């Protein structure tokens, strides 16, 4: 049984879907990577799981969480705000991109962790030891705990934010661009921390990033989003090595690989579609060098290789077939 199951998630803004037909499952202890560029709907999906969407966005579809040790599955989509307060932080936490904005600037870090625990465990006794342990888990000391957020560096704040997310021992942590604001060495340190927490605590993780290389390193499975839809998903390494959707392929091509080919890859022309005026058929069609008449029909997300799904009429793709563009198509 999956820890988290999302079926047919749709999020509408003024009647238009900005996230559509998203099905996702996360197994206990698994790391799922959600990839895509600005506006593709990955953060909206995360906020829908936390039931933190702004009022202008209307979700539909089912989101089921099965926290270990409880018999009753939690239907997040049906929960009231009060009911969600018992779920957030306790069973699923969210680590935001800008840790400075998510931490309370006028509270010491250890007080913030203490409050998060007290909220869910009002009868808990002394928590000093547990907080110290939490800080140590993320590579901080009690001295960091006594600091205010502004006294910490960006990397330390991100670690404090992770400690806070872990405070009530949730089964699932969603991390939205947790390393984007960090320098490359600090990013590597935080990725190693998340990997260690996963093995030590059996934590499941949804990692959201625009950086496919980060996700391929840190995750078991990947889902690539474009214009509100999942266009490809599968085992992380398989998607990274042998993508099955032209968008994934072009994204990977534009990522310089150290020690690999030098120079600039052919850019993807144009910009993502306006969600209020989506193109007919495949949403990537207007930018796709392989598009043909059949692409005026919307392709379904289907299995095209072992465990790998893609929403492209031409999948499965052989490595050599990427070289043949279709200038006679309809882009």
């Amino acid at each position, binding site marked *: 049984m999956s820890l988290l199951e999302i079926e047919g998630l749709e999020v509408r803004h003024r009647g238009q879907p900005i996230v559509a037909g998203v099905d996702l499952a996360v197994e206990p202890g698994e790391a799922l990577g959600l990839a895509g560029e600005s506006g593709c709907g990955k953060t909206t999906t995360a906020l829908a799981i936390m039931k933190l969407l702004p009022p202008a966005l209307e979700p539909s579809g089912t989101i089921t969480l099965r926290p270990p040790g409880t018999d009753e599955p939690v239907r997040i989509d049906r929960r009231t705000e009060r009911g969600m307060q018992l779920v957030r932080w306790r069973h699923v936490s969210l680590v935001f991109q800008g840790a400075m904005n998510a931490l309370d600037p006028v509270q010491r870090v250890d007080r913030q962790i203490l409050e998060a625990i007290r909220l869910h465990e009002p009868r808990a006794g002394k928590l000093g030891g547990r907080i110290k342990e939490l800080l140590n888990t993320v590579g901080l000391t009690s001295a960091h705990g006594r600091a205010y957020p502004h006294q910490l560096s960006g990397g330390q704040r991100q670690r404090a934010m992770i400690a806070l997310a872990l405070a009530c021992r949730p089964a699932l942590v969603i991390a939205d661009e947790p390393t984007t604001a960090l320098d490359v*060495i600090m990013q590597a340190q935080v990725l190693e921390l998340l990997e260690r927490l996963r093995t030590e605590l059996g934590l499941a993780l949804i990692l959201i990033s625009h950086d496919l290389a980060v996700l391929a390193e840190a995750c078991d499975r990947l889902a690539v989003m474009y214009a509100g839809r999942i266009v490809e998903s599968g085992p992380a390494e398989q998607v990274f090595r042998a993508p099955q959707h032209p968008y994934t392929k072009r994204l990977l091509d534009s990522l310089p690989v150290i020690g690999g080919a030098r120079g600039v890859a052919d850019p993807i022309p144009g910009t993502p579609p306006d969600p209020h005026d989506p193109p007919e058929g495949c949403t990537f069609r207007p930018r796709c060098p392989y598009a043909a008449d059949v692409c005026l029909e919307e392709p379904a997300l289907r299995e095209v290789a072992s465990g790998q799904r893609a929403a492209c009429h031409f999948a499965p793709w052989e490595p050599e077939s990427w070289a043949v563009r279709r200038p006679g198509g309809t882009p």
Partner: protein
Amino acid sequence: MIAVRDLHVHYRAARAVDGVSLDWRPGEVLGVVGESGCGKSTLARAMLGLVPAAAGTVELDGQAVREWRALRRRVQMVFQDPYQTLNPRMRVRAIVEEPLVISGAGDRGPLVDRALADVGLPPERFADRYPHELSGGQRQRVAIAAALVLDPEGLICDEPVSMLDVSVRAQVLKVLMDLRASRSLALLFITHDLGLAWALCDRIAVMYLGRIVEQGSAQQVIEQPRHPYTQALVAAVPAPDRDRGAKLVAGEPPDAAHIPPGCRLHPRCPHRFEPCDREDPPLFDAGDGDHRAACLLLRPSESPAAHA
């Protein structure tokens, strides 16, 4: 083209640039790579006289620069954030034309049109738009057009694509590299992105705490890094199946007001040995041509076996 000689830039107690010497050759694509706070942006600004140097010189064609205005005509700068650098109340044509107005050039229309065409923005479609009508990538291309219109020999690009989405980055980088070919423009990329430096640069200089700790060709620096800090940077680049081993440096850099004595990396360095906390290493020859690194392990008298 521009040579920097033992340049120092201080902000109060912080030694943001702490003795940098660097050559940027005509037509060359040079990368200055480092993490936030290493002084790379300050170095770029000091090269154009936008921040005062505490010591050292910037030379243009072998002469120490005294008149910055002349240098800034020949070398222009493109900044990171295309949302803050374009005047929102000016149309694209006026933005690109402004440097020509300031320099008193006549017959400006064709020059503006050419600059816009060169960055892939057809003037008939884009010249009359306002910045808010453009995407991030298009804005950055307008900024590049404004930098190009005076026909400079060099462009200093400070993190030109770090705020852009992956697919848009390639569009902007392609424009820059095409310009290099068509206008034989020299490019200086200030970046934290080692992958970008690898893909585009002829030579790379790695900065740490105000000092260049390694420089050489892109292949030498990325494929055969000799300085432990460069090795850590290369090891930190995310990739599937990455095994970093013991290459990462520990902790975080101190701030530029508290530069450690001796080698500035020694408190974090996995290879430090006895003299590292006392001796500040100069750039030593790494033994393969134009490749140098500031690590005492490369000092000719040091036997690598003694501290392997």
